């Protein structure tokens, strides 16, 4: 017997809940969702960081006097100073400026593959876990095959086939990420699909698609959000790798990942060159994680009374 089952008492509801119920009468809709999301401090911090990065990217020209691309051979590899807050790189460009501009690429580059892999992966996982039979076998074996190929190799092949530009690189990164979502969602779906409420809604006459997206999907969101928020960092770096190979964004356009990659070569001489963009990636991943956890909890009705 757990504390949880013991607290499940109260048949009929105690009278004070009448008042309570008015207080939280509107418990759907996105205003209610946002209110719950930002009731806690960490999601708020996460949101602030993400917004700051977005502002930095959009208003970059207003926030820095330097140019992100034009080299300045007078100021090569300078450590952080009052003139260059984060130092300069091997071509004398201001790192702070490059991070602001790089955000334009990197934030975009982080979310496009995320959307691609999660939407395709979740759909495939849901279908495989509910429809079963040959469909399940085919989908999941293809996913296994995807997972068995080293992801960098696969990305290079896909990006190479599609042609070298940023969008194609992002599509490649997205496709490579599909298998992870599919596997997790598939496993969750298998157990959720067996629950009796799914059977009960089938008895009400609901269609398979309705069951997939209205009954099962809301119950498998938690792991999706966790993987999604954790994968941001990897995606930013993957974009850098592809760019490095000439399959993505081309120099001198800045992106955080490519800045880290370039900086690695000067790690002993000028550590700030990779530390500064690294810190940007770290902050972004952390912020998205805080937000992700907040979204997950705000979606969970069980936690609504406790927050």
């Amino acid at each position, binding site marked *: 017997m757990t504390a949880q089952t013991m607290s499940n008492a109260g048949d*009929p*509801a105690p009278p004070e809940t009448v008042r309570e119920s008015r207080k939280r009468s509107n418990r759907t809709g996105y205003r209610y969702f946002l209110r719950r999301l930002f009731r806690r401090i960490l999601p708020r911090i996460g949101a602030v960081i993400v917004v700051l990065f977005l502002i930095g990217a959009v208003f970059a020209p207003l926030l820095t006097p330097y140019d992100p691309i034009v080299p300045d051979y007078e100021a090569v590899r300078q450590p952080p100073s009052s003139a260059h807050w984060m130092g300069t790189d091997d071509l004398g460009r201001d790192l702070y400026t490059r991070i602001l501009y790089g955000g334009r690429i990197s934030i975009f580059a982080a979310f496009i593959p995320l959307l691609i892999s999660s939407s395709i992966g979740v759909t495939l996982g849901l279908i495989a876990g509910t429809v079963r039979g040959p469909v399940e076998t085919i989908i999941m074996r293809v996913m296994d095959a995807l997972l068995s190929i080293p992801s960098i190799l696969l990305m290079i092949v896909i990006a190479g086939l599609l042609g070298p530009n940023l969008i194609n690189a992002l599509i490649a990164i997205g496709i490579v990420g599909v298998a992870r979502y599919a596997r997790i969602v598939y496993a969750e779906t298998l157990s959720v699909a067996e629950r009796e409420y799914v059977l009960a*809604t089938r008895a009400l006459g609901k269609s398979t698609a309705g069951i997939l997206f209205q009954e099962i999907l809301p*119950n498998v969101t938690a792991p999706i959000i966790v993987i999604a928020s954790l994968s941001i960092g990897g995606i930013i770096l993957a974009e850098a790798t592809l760019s490095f190979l000439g399959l993505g964004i081309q120099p001198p356009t800045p992106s955080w990942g490519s800045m880290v990659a370039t900086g690695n070569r000067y790690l002993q001489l000028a550590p700030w060159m990779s530390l500064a963009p690294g810190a940007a990636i770290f902050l972004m991943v952390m912020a998205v994680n805080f937000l992700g956890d907040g979204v997950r909890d705000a979606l969970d*009705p069980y936690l609504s009374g406790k927050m």
Partner: protein
Amino acid sequence: MANKQQPLLQVNDLHTYFYTEDGVVKAVDGVNFHVSRGEVLGLVGESGSGKSVTSLSIMRLIGPPGKIVSGEILFDGKPLQTMSEKEMVHIRGDAVSMIFQQPQSSLNPVYTTGDQVAEVFKLHSKMDGAEIDTRTTEMFRMVGIPDPAQKVKAYPHEMSGGQAQRVMIAMGLALSPKLLIADEPTTALDVTIQAQILDLIRNLKEQLETAVILITHDLGVIAEMADRVAVMYAGQIVEQAPVETLFAQPKHPYTQGLLASIPVLGTVKDRLDAIPGAVPNLVDLPPGCHFAARCSARIEYGLDICRHKEPDLLQVGANQEAKCWLYQSDGDHVAPLAGVAPVEKPKAASDPAPVAPAEVHAQRTTRTTTAKTLLDVKKLRKYYPVRGGVMRRVMANVKAVDGVSFTIRAGETLGLVGESGCGKSTIGRTILRLQEPTDGSVQFDGQDVFSMSRQELKGLRRDMQIVLQDPYASLNPRKQIGQSIADGLKVHNIGTAKERKDIIIDMLRKVGLEDYHALRYPHEFSGGQRQRIGIARALALNPKFIVCDEPVSALDVSIQSQVLNLLNDLQDEFDLTYLFVAHDLSVVEHISDRVAIMYLGKMVELASRDDLFRNPLHPYTQSLMSAVPIPDPTLKKERIILKGDVPSPLSPPTGCRFHTRCPLAVDRCKMEEPPFEEKRPDHFAACWEVS
């Protein structure tokens, strides 16, 4: 050593609390009791009453966030609550041992069952390997496992639930402990297996002179096994008495209510007396008696003190103690029933004394038998293919339902009973085409269900609904219950948003909930309330026919009666027809007009309720009925204990499927399958030995 006079176990003022995020859960809140040597103490209560926590406290197995806060546990005069963990290791398994509810999950799947029993000897004795092996085999024989020398090598998954529980008992009794704590030892087992296990515990207890604390929610099991009974409610013992006294003269209103709320096999009442409400939340209990909120006697006698001050557990009769202000005075409060002996039971308590069956049955007439046939099931088969090999070919078929025919008349309730795995739930789901049938036909209201197109089937869903067993699993946790109830209406485009809202509110009221509940999520409800929501969801489409798939088996007894009464009322109000699937014969007898008994995918008997329970023809029905423990300790009935387990539906026995366990089986039964035929007017059975 210990004084023979003192009780084996004495528990004084035990408090065990759980420190959770929601607050302090007072799971055990001041419990006093004792167990004498060789005695069986029955500890009875609903879920959340604290009976399991009490037993775990005795074993000192309470882990964080739980803690034994105060109290004294004296075992053989030695205080267990202050012992070091090292000393406790010697007590556990050696002097006090425990068996649990789920035998198969209490055994470790990666070791053989023999190794797990041998482990007990290794831990607590100095025997050598060979000696341990012989002792282990001996234990297997003692607990009645067939072919013990072979079975010691079996892994838990290779055993049936009943056998696994025997292994657990072997582990528990391996070192002849002085005290055995059995925590719901038969709750997870089928009734015929339960009879075997109870029989075994009773015999071994006498053989080994072990005292037993038997924890259960089943008053029938208590009546059959216990010498003395302690009734627990919300973390406290509310009444304590010898078993005969407790059942004949329950003093506490909770005990009285509990006894009145259970359907008793052979005794049919129009309506069960239900205790209103549910076990309270153990966090922030209001002051006063924990039962006050649900107590009808408090209102009847106009007692005010119950809400302010907690009564003590005091003597109210010979060896009988109750914790109730009805029998105690305090300051201005004068006990209304003190000294009035014998206490007249409030009308809520039924007389559990056996009444001649014929007389009782006359009290509630079964529904009209002339009504038209609503559902006609013919030769229904449902096989589940077992696939194997690289090509996933069908290797064998699990014949879950194998040629079952029956009809249900409009407005009646057909009870469908059988042990687990007999195919009863499959029938319900196949009729609704929630699972595709293998063969057979179902006519519903003149339409052929199995030949319907997807679109026609959707229309049919309005008329045929299902209420499922597990109230925790049958509601989508991410949806407000109003949305869940409205689901069916949306699917079938019934009404505008406003009209749907009205229907939801109407349905909630019909099942005894409030309209503001519509905006809440499932986890905010108790089990009984969730089952009401499940019923409301099925009712919203205004169906003609509802499959009730074990709708009360996951509920506590006092809640069970509320839901059964509700189903009865709704049937009258909406003219519903039920297929009531259950494993509990008493419940089925209470609610059904006609009853069908199933065994291994076949129907073995079908008759009107009165015929079936008064005059069962099939030997399986007879043994099933005799295996049900009756909550009356004075009733010593002859018991037919079936041998062995239900065979696997993968390879059912030839001929009559019951012949391997049948006390009447003759050679013919092994060869030829008996036809399901009308043996008496309107009384069908499948047996060669019944003419």
